[in-house]
């Protein structure tokens, strides 16, 4: 029975390594895109349109004769970089708001939480949709919309974490020693919640990528001819009968990327047990 447990732990660790490797591989691919991609992703050549996978075009071409593999590779750049930017901004904003709200309490806390309540009354994606709708379809606007919608979730969670750490003995001890507020936050509270935030961020990367590609799929994100996985799926829709590969490959890539982030996030969550984080602080 416990042999099963042990085996499962090792297996999970292996999964974590595989997903981390996959993500690293993707990042490298994105960085080295101009070197790796066999063709220019935006090169239109109607002579080659809708070709099956062959030596020249390893994954075939789309309806405008562009190499699918190259577009996927360049798409990595866009998806990963935008998702990363969205996540960083979201965390930065929600960290500030969540920490202030949790630590200061009182009126500030009440105010921020009321705002969060109101924003949470809108279903997530619908509010993002509306913001993009108002600002106009473009990748930047999608990013803005996602940050505007996501920070609320994070702020709530961070506030909860701050509240629980605030009551710990070592924080109370620091306050007794008249350590200033900001110093307490930076030196005592933040280190204890950082690991949980990293887990959240990793798990959320998957969600962000899904949403960005989803909005691009609807035509509201990247504008043509920029190569992006969701947009490629949208292009491939019309040819689903004749060339299903146009829609299979981009979707597969999205699945693999999101799966990797989710697996990594899960593994990190198991590894970075909050109890260990607090014990580490006390050393």
């Amino acid at each position: 029975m416990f042999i099963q447990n042990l085996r499962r732990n090792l297996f999970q660790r292996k999964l974590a390594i595989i997903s981390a490797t996959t993500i690293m591989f993707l990042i490298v691919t994105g960085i080295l895109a101009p070197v790796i991609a066999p063709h220019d992703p935006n090169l239109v050549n109607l002579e080659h349109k809708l070709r099956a996978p062959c030596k020249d075009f390893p994954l075939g071409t789309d309806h405008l004769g562009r190499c699918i593999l190259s577009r996927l590779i360049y798409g990595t750049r866009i998806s990963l970089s935008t998702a990363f930017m969205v996540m960083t901004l979201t965390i930065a904003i929600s960290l500030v708001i969540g920490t202030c709200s949790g630590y200061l309490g009182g009126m500030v806390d009440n105010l921020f939480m009321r705002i969060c309540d109101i924003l949470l009354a809108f279903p997530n994606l619908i509010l993002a949709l509306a913001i993009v709708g108002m600002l106009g379809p473009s990748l930047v606007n999608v990013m803005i919309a996602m940050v505007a919608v996501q920070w609320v979730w994070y702020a709530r969670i961070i506030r909860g974490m701050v509240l629980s750490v605030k009551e710990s003995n070592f924080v109370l001890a620091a306050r007794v020693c008249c350590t200033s507020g900001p110093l307490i936050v930076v030196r005592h509270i933040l280190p204890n919640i950082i690991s949980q935030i990293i887990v959240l961020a990793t798990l959320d990367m998957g969600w962000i990528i899904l949403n960005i590609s989803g909005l691009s799929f609807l035509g509201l994100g990247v504008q043509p001819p920029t190569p992006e996985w969701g947009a490629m799926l949208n292009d491939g829709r019309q040819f689903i009968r004749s060339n299903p590969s146009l829609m299979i490959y981009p979707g597969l890539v999205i699945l693999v990327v999101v799966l990797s982030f989710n697996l990594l996030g899960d593994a990190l969550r198991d590894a970075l047990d909050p109890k260990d984080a607090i014990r580490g602080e006390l050393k």
Partner: protein
Amino acid sequence: MSIAPVLAVENLHTHIPTPEGIIRAVNGVSFQIGPGRVLGLVGESGCGKSITCLSILGLLNAGRVVNGRIRLKGKDILNLSPEEMRKIRGKEIGMIMQNPMSSFNPVITIGQQFIETIRTHRRVSAREARELAIEYLHQVGLPYPKDLLGQFPFQLSGGMLQRVMIAISIALNPAVLIADEPTTALDVTVQNRILGQLARLKEKYNAAIILVSHDLSVVAQLADEVAVMYSGYLVEKAPVMEIFDNPLHPYTRALMASRPSLKKKRLRPIRGQPPTLLNLDDICPFFERCGEVSRACLDYTVELVELSRNHFVGCVKYGSNQEVVLYDYA
């Protein structure tokens, strides 16, 4: 004992497999109880008292009984099918839990939980079961039993819930009742009342009771016989007066000495920690903390030796091939 024992446990060994190794939770525990008698099972946390009780009831989660025999009214119950064992639980062997507040289902009424228990073991209609429940709740001294049936566990205090548990056991009239630290979660005034209820159980219904506790005073009030456990071993077993007047095993003596009393000024705890139950060596388990060690302890496996009438000890000092050395402990 001229009357046949209701419950006889012989050489019980229970092991719990864990990723770190096998925990030997119960090592060769044997005892018998007759009808209407109370056996006090005493020891520190983690000494195996609760696991022994769970082993008797067949409620071990990860653990397994690897050796020994358990006989209820002469019949072996270790090798019964799950369904047969289920019929015995509650009806023949009842249990009262340590933590009454968390032992009841929080979203189902007390009445429902009581009635379904009755109807599981007796062929009665819902209305009859309800009447029975009211009657038994009344017997344990709970006010307004009719209203109580419709209430939820969070609406009652710990003491009241404990009495409900006793009422449920009375309703089924088991031959054996296992009371696992019934008063630990309650405050002292309530404690007395509960012990009183258990005493009535013993007198009126002639139930054999296993009273598990780490509190010697509780045991002293109710038990006829006391069995002391340490590290999964039974180290001493004697009638209650005998064990209090004349404790023989060093652990028992240390327990007696550590009780707070008006005469002593300082508490005398037993120093050290109990050993982990993983990979016990072939030395006496109490070796590290014992105040009376000798070289022979390093090569001793606990074995109960009967010294005087019904007084059993498992210490190298009282080995079958050694002189009996008795001395007082101040």
